């Protein structure tokens, strides 16, 4: 099986190197593709990468339920129902369909809480990722590319920030502006940008010395173009990997902060808060911790599946290796 695939890979190169044979190539070559054609190709490749496809599906579902939470959720997530407190999920003894994932100590529906909680968790995760990632990458690329004083200044800033305990910032900020979603985003961003800066700087330093960057400079590219067009794309792979790991960390960090009372308000809804408050009853009502926990894991898993697909797509060589054979096969099928 593996052998067969390899053969196809070799075929691809042979077919393509038959120069001037435009007829055979019509279906394969990327001759003047329009934007829609490119998007379509991307979707086809996503379909063929099953894992990535599942990840995208799960994430879209999550986003949709988060946006339409009031319509989707079976109950009001804050409504207490003391008669039905600590109901187990539907599949265990004593569970029933009115509370599919059970209820908590005050009789609130776990499923509805998860659906509403996803709003805060996803928002915090994405917002922190965007802010910390953007700031970190820009500073890191600048430090690496400019070098000299800029480099030293930025990296000392990073060192100082790393040495400063994140929890202290969290407590300080929470005391100053009060616990809220905004506070969590600010705290986690301040605490998280350095890792991006360090990684970006490292990659830039190594790529900066390559011949093709020198070639770009000799061609007459301005520094900005060299930086963003030739150096920046090399960050795609390590950056997506890092972002996935960070996303998981952020969702958990939000939980930890909320648990300590310096994150979102205790009356707010978030997965982390659910885990934290369910922890007291883990021995008699396991579902209070397990349900949000499973959801966090599934989300992180989906993000990482999508990220690994993105990484392949971002690298022309990997992309051709992975999808070239499928393209050929399709081409042969279409044209007999």
């Amino acid at each position: 099986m593996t052998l067969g695939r390899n053969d196809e890979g070799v075929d691809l190169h042979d077919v393509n190197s038959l120069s001037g044979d435009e007829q055979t190539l019509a279906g394969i070559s990327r001759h003047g593709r329009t934007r829609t054609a490119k998007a379509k190709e991307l979707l086809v490749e996503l379909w063929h990468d099953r894992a990535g496809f599942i990840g995208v599906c799960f994430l879209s579902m999550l986003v949709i339920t988060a946006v339409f939470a009031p319509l989707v959720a079976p109950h009001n997530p804050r409504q207490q129902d003391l008669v039905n407190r600590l109901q187990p999920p539907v599949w265990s003894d004593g569970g029933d369909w009115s509370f599919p994932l059970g209820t908590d100590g005050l009789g609130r529906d776990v499923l509805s809480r998860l659906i509403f909680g996803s709003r805060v968790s996803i928002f915090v995760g994405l917002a922190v990722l965007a802010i910390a990632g953007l700031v970190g990458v820009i500073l890191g690329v600048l430090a690496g590319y400019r070098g000299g004083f800029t480099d030293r200044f930025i990296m000392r800033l990073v060192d100082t920030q790393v040495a400063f305990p994140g929890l202290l910032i969290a407590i300080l900020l929470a005391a100053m502006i009060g616990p809220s979603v905004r506070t969590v985003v600010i705290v986690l961003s301040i605490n998280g940008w350095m890792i991006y800066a360090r990684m970006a700087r490292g990659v830039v330093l190594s790529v900066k010395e390559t011949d093709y960057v020198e070639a770009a400079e000799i061609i007459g590219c301005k520094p900005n173009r060299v930086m963003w067009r030739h150096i920046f794309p090399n960050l795609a792979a390590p950056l997506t990997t890092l972002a996935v790991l960070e996303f998981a960390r952020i969702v958990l960090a939000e939980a930890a902060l909320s648990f300590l009372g310096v994150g979102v308000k205790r009356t707010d809804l978030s997965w982390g808060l659910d885990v934290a408050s369910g922890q007291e009853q883990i021995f008699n009502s396991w579902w209070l911790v397990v349900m949000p926990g499973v959801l966090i894991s599934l989300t992180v898993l989906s993000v990482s599946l999508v990220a690994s697909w993105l990484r392949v797509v971002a690298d022309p060589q990997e992309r051709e290796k992975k999808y070239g054979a499928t393209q050929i096969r399709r081409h042969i099928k279409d044209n007999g």
Partner: protein
Amino acid sequence: MDHLTIHFPVGRSRLLGRQQQVVHAVEDVSFSINRGETLGLAGESGSGKTTTGRAILRRIDPKRGTIRFRGRDITQSSGQALRHLRRHMQLVFQDPYASLNPRMNVLDLVAEPLIVHGIYNSTDDAREYVLELLEQCGLSADTADRFPHAFSGGQRQRIGIARAIGLRPEFIVADEPVSALDVSIRAQVVNLLQDLQDELGITYLFIAHDLSVVRHISNRVAIMYAGQIVEIADRDTIYERPLHPYTEALLSSIPVPNPQLQRDRRRIVLSGEIPDTLEPPSGCRFASRCPLVEERCHVEMPSLSPRSETHDAACWVR
């Protein structure tokens, strides 16, 4: 190019007592290249060939000396002026595998200089011209949409050449353009460079350590040793009547395609090492390895002096 001297500081100046050592990479090198000709620059590794080439393209700042291009002093050019200069002088790289961005397809790669210099607005506009360039360099039109990883070394070097000639430069530094290639491909690429020269009237500085290739393409040849030019002359003069003992030794290392002759040839095998470029000797840099060495060579540095109309050499003995 006059009295070009390039020093590289090594080791950082320490906090206490600024001790800074300097690599004398290129020392007092002067030569000129006439329009439309090819100057071959040969010498062993570490002799400063590449550094010289990079300095001419203003990639490295010389410590002393001036670089003139079309009569204008470009030693201090920077920023916009330097970018404008890039239109007229380009580089062909040694390593065709590293010098093409693996994330850009051939069309983007070849079109980039054209877009950067505002000749075309977008890659799509430039397409026709790029295809023309590719064809000129012996590549078919369907290469344009593929990525560098799909090509062999020779093809990649052709892409690199297409990129270099897109701006119609008058001067190209070819930094060992064939040394990374398979022997069977070398002749093709060298011939391509020559054809382009005939067609477009490009001037080359051809850097190489392969003396046969240098002989094939050059009008004049300069030999470098330890950061200095020891001899510069017309191609035939230097290959048939070398003056400097280093040139002689270098030439004797070229194998002759005739076993009989090859066996009877006198090969000059040099012993010793290249002098330390951190502390170059005060006399002739070749003195420690020279078979003809005299007292004077250790004391005084010989300068490049004319021996005939087209032949300069730096040696006390000859």
